């Protein structure tokens, strides 16, 4: 595939893909239609990662297929307003500059499917962020493993990925069925279901029966929570997901109203959070609308961040939702989220979330006490 004219970066990228293919027993490479690269927040990759990316950019690495980024450690446009330390901001900008030099689209989001990249049923992609991987595999029916930073970048440079794992239909069979015996209404309910099932799944792909209603916002909440608690990268819901592939005799478990109450309690108990963070995964325009409706005309007594993709924020700005939220004392924050942004360095100690994924990661990554619940339970006003 490569001759003398290929850049050093392209040669090295193929060497990475071949090595990973060997490790995972891939027989061939498969072309990918898009790539999402992990390892964007300076908080997670540090100087070691920054130096790697700068070297790669210098060696001529260029993305061959549409490629975009995971959330970064801050909002590129309003980091000063949010209290991000300047030293951190400089390093974060250097990381983004290196990616931009490689021809990567500067959209830093865990919801590429909300801003126009929606791979079709059966399409092969190489995505990284765990909730986006889950959504792509499950809700869209695309084919992707969960890539690491270097393997995703290598896929972007070469336009292919090793054909193993979830790229193969034989590895996409559910061996565990969850009967949902309680009504799930809000995102926090779906997050709790995800936390419960992710732990029980132990790497298997769960299939759900008994879920009658779930829009895409609820599905992203469920998938994100399962990915965080159990590394789940694929699930099925009878009557809702485009595929429903279950083995002949799956293990069967149930999820009752009691399980829902106990799991919600486990996810967070601290009350009156200093910061309430919505948008894990990044909020859809509809979710931003719901926040705006709820805070309209009120004055928040806590901080509120609604995290979203820059492109979604621009729509919220135009629709007036951002203005409404800011008038109440909250913010709509783009490019980043409460997990990969250094909120502990800004001074927050207690954070409220309606996301099972955020509740799982906030204590470890950000040293936060967590308050878990729906918007109405978390926000408090003057």
């Amino acid at each position: 595939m490569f001759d003398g004219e290929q850049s050093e970066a392209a040669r090295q990228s193929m060497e990475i893909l071949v090595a990973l293919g060997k490790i995972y027993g891939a027989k061939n490479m498969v072309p990918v239609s898009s790539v999402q690269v992990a390892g964007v927040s300076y908080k997670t990759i540090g100087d070691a990662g920054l130096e790697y990316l700068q070297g790669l950019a210098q060696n001529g690495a260029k993305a061959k297929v549409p490629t975009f980024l995971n959330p970064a450690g801050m909002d590129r446009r309003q980091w000063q307003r949010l209290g991000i330390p300047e030293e951190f901001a400089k390093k974060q900008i250097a990381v983004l500059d290196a990616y931009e030099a490689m021809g990567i689209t500067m959209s830093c989001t865990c919801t590429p499917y909300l801003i126009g990249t929606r791979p079709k049923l059966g399409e092969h992609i190489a995505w990284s962020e765990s909730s986006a991987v889950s959504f792509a595999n499950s809700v869209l029916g695309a084919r992707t493993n969960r890539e690491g930073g270097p393997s995703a970048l290598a896929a972007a440079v070469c336009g292919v990925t090793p054909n193993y794992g979830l790229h193969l239909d034989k590895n996409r069979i559910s061996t565990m069925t969850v009967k949902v015996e309680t009504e799930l209404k809000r995102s926090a309910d779906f997050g709790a279901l995800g936390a419960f099932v992710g732990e029980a799944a132990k790497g298997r792909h769960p299939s759900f029966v008994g879920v009658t209603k779930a829009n895409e916002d609820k599905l992203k909440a469920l998938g994100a929570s399962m990915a965080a608690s159990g590394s789940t990268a694929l699930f099925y819901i009878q009557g809702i997901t485009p595929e429903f592939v279950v083995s002949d005799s799956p293990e069967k478990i149930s999820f009752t109203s009691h399980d829902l109450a106990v799991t919600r309690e486990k996810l967070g108990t601290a009350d009156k959070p200093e910061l309430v963070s919505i948008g894990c995964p990044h909020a859809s325009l509809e979710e931003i609308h719901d926040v705006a409706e709820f805070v309209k005309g009120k004055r928040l007594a806590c901080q509120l961040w609604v995290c979203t993709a820059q492109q979604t924020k621009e729509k919220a700005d135009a629709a007036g939702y951002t203005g409404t939220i800011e008038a109440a004392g909250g913010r709509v924050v783009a490019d980043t989220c409460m997990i990969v942004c250094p909120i502990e360095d800004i001074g927050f100690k207690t954070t409220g979330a309606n996301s099972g994924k955020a509740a799982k990661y906030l204590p470890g990554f950000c040293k936060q006490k967590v308050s878990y619940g729906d918007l109405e339970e978390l926000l408090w006003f003057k």
Partner: protein
Amino acid sequence: MVQINARAISRGIGKGKALVSKDAISFLGGVDPKTGVVVEKGHALEGKCIAGTVLVFPRGKGSTVGSYVMLQLAKNKNAPAAIINLEAEPIIAVGAIISKIPMVDKLEGETYEQLKNGMEISVDGAEGKVRYE
């Protein structure tokens, strides 16, 4: 000379004295990139310098950022001359490739167990060969 077949992971030829670890290695937090010394408390190689050695260990562990730390080691001239794993996983494989450290794994038969500290070993990461006198 003994020649052992192995699986090629990262190309290049590296020679040095074997440093054998029974424990898995995390490069992030486990090895100081400024000195090449293993700093993980209680690790089989704690206090040992890996620079210039043929580093023999079962596999990687810990954060994927470990791959980037291997690159820092190489820039600081503290990287091992070559790596031999029992069975490679992505963190070490990717780290070796981006740092240009020759690497093999899956030595034929039970030969991995015969590698001992101080042996002069040559690793060919393109051909997948391990050689020693």
